[in-house]
């Protein structure tokens, strides 16, 4: 699907007409707070919004009422001044539960689902397999889209350790369980019999003999069981993957990246933007988060401001002000590099957010952040 874009000049422009907003970025950049702020702003403007988060900071989780991993969806009360028809629901992703639900949905029978859910390999894989969490975030997303209870979904993805991991996750998971390759393990004898050429047969048994030697037979049996049980799930998984891929490339989906104002972070963000573009995904806005606010009293000279200060304090404060300046220099260099890389017709909107004095811990803080975000252009 070819998407048409018009360059936005504010975050409200970017979000107009969107049904899905995907927040991307590394861990610890304030992605979840930003997701909450985006969702809050849109809900306050009168839309029915759901925000799905993966791993909120404890205080933000408290603010949204979803601190516990198995927390049920929570309705966040909107303050007065918000449109009366808007609503906001906060949810947490439980990737293990999502995986389990998928097994229950696609297994041939209740017994097959139970057998798979209690298989040692499934237990290991569903919790810790690389990319599972990313895949499940999108899986949950498509469940929510299907339910059609909301007119905007905001999703905060797990930290993107690397670009390929994030959005290639659906493809990788299905690739991993590539039926062709793995069915050999499920029923090696039948496959060897079917392999027509002598050479093919010989090399297949050679490989299998080696697998046995490397892994020990018990491993092979375990994998075989697992593959047999997993085959049904795989079919459903492939369907879903197609649907998710389409959803992510739909013109009604927006990608918003959050980045820290540091040169290394910005360099990775630029690379990430390119990687996404290469697989047909476009970042619509980049939020440079936690910029050190300007020291507005610096228009008056230090000598004047610190005239009454004890001598030692004066020296110490001079050092602190210099350090803050050097921090701002680091940040503005990073921001310049980002803006320079993001030019051209298709370039995402780049906006900055100043660092709040406190961690986001209440709905009021989220509202403040939402106001700041909407005011930027």
């Amino acid at each position: 699907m070819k998407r048409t874009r018009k360059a936005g000049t504010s975050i409200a422009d970017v979000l107009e007409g969107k049904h899905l907003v995907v927040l991307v970025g590394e861990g610890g950049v304030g992605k979840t707070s930003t997701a909450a702020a985006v969702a809050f702003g849109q809900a306050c403007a009168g839309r029915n919004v759901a925000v799905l988060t993966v791993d909120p900071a404890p205080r933000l989780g408290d603010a949204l009422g979803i601190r516990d991993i198995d927390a049920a969806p929570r309705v966040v009360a909107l303050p007065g001044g918000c449109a009366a028809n808007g609503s906001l629901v906060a949810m947490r992703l439980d990737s293990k539960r999502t995986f389990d639900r998928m097994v229950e949905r696609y297994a041939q029978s209740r017994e097959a689902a139970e057998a798979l859910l209690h298989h040692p390999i499934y237990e290991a894989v569903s919790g810790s397999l690389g990319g599972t969490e990313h895949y499940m975030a999108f899986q949950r997303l498509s469940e929510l889209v299907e339910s059609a209870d909301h007119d905007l979904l905001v999703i905060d993805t797990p930290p993107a350790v690397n670009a390929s991991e994030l959005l290639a996750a659906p493809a990788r998971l299905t690739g991993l369980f590539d039926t062709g390759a793995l069915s050999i393990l499920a029923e090696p004898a039948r496959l060897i019999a079917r392999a027509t050429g002598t050479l093919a047969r010989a090399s297949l048994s050679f490989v299998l003999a080696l697998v046995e030697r490397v892994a020990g037979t018990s491993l092979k049996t375990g994998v075989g069981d697992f593959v047999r049980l997993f085959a049904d799930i795989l079919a459903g998984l492939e369907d879903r993957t197609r649907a998710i891929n389409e959803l992510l490339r739909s013109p009604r989906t927006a990608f918003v990246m959050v980045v820290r104002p540091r040169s290394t972070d910005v360099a990775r963000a630029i690379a990430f933007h390119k990687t996404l573009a290469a697989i047909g995904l476009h970042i619509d806005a980049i939020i440079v988060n936690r910029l050190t606010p300007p020291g507005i009293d610096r228009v008056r000279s230090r000598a004047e401001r610190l005239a009454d200060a004890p001598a030692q304090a004066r020296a110490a404060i001079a050092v602190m002000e210099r350090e803050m300046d050097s921090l701002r220099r680091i940040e503005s260099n990073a921001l310049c590099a980002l803006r320079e890389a993001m030019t051209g017709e298709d370039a995402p909107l780049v906006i900055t957010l100043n660092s709040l004095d406190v961690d986001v811990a209440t709905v009021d803080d989220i509202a403040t952040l939402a106001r700041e975000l909407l005011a930027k252009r």
Partner: protein
Amino acid sequence: MRTGPARILFVSGKGGTGKSFVAEALARSAVSHGLDVALLRVRAAAGADEHGSQAAEPATTGSGSSHRRGRAAPSATFKETVLDERATLEKFLTRVLRLGFVARRLLDSRTFSAIAAATPGLRDLVTLSAITALASHGRRRGFDLIVVDAPASGHTIPLLTAPALVLDIAPLGPVAQEARAARALIANESRFLPLIVTTPEELAVTEALSLYDDLLGAGIPAPRIVVNGLWPGHLRPEHVEWLLTTGASIDALLYEKRRRRQLELVAVLEHRVGRCPTLPFTFREDEVPEAAIAALLDTVLGALR
């Protein structure tokens, strides 16, 4: 200078905490103290490059390409390696099968790649085995210290529990032998020390503590937590009071506020795990706080004795 079998410092932490920076600084500091050091960069087994940044890192892969650097003591060697998945797997298979060409043949088979990918713990075990192998070189070729720049904390537990998982599924055979060797090494508290790097930020501290608990729960030697990027204190307490009442410098106020929040988080950490060493924020990108790194190195080497 070799002082006995190689000790392993396993540096982990949430992404963005400066884990790789700390690992490298510690490795270089150890070299300048005359130790033979290997710095091993491990990437998550499931992923490819980290935003493509990996290629930018200086790396000497393969075997034996040790070189001397910087202010290293005359006899000390420093070797930096990025673990390459295929090469590591090939070495692993060669060790297990004792035949290089068979290993290569196996690696080229799609079936085998599928099995290797789908078998829980196998890739992690391969990574861990590479570390074990490096640590058990004979004294002549070996290192005093192996600093592992581990994958981000989410992947640390799967990596370190891979031997147990593999032994659970496949208790017999050559793979099990490798798993047992790796398990023995990482359970040995005089040779293996996990170091968790955190920044004084809420999310990072929460993750560091949960990794700490998970590591202890997995029977791995008690980790140390280092706080990276603490803003240094400049004002005496009475002067902080003066600043708060007069508001004479917005920057100094911002600085103090940030520092106080950081100290609160350090207190939360220390309440749970005891004293944590800290590294100061330098306010300059890429500047290494040498003195604090040297002190941290002393602490961790002391813990490994």
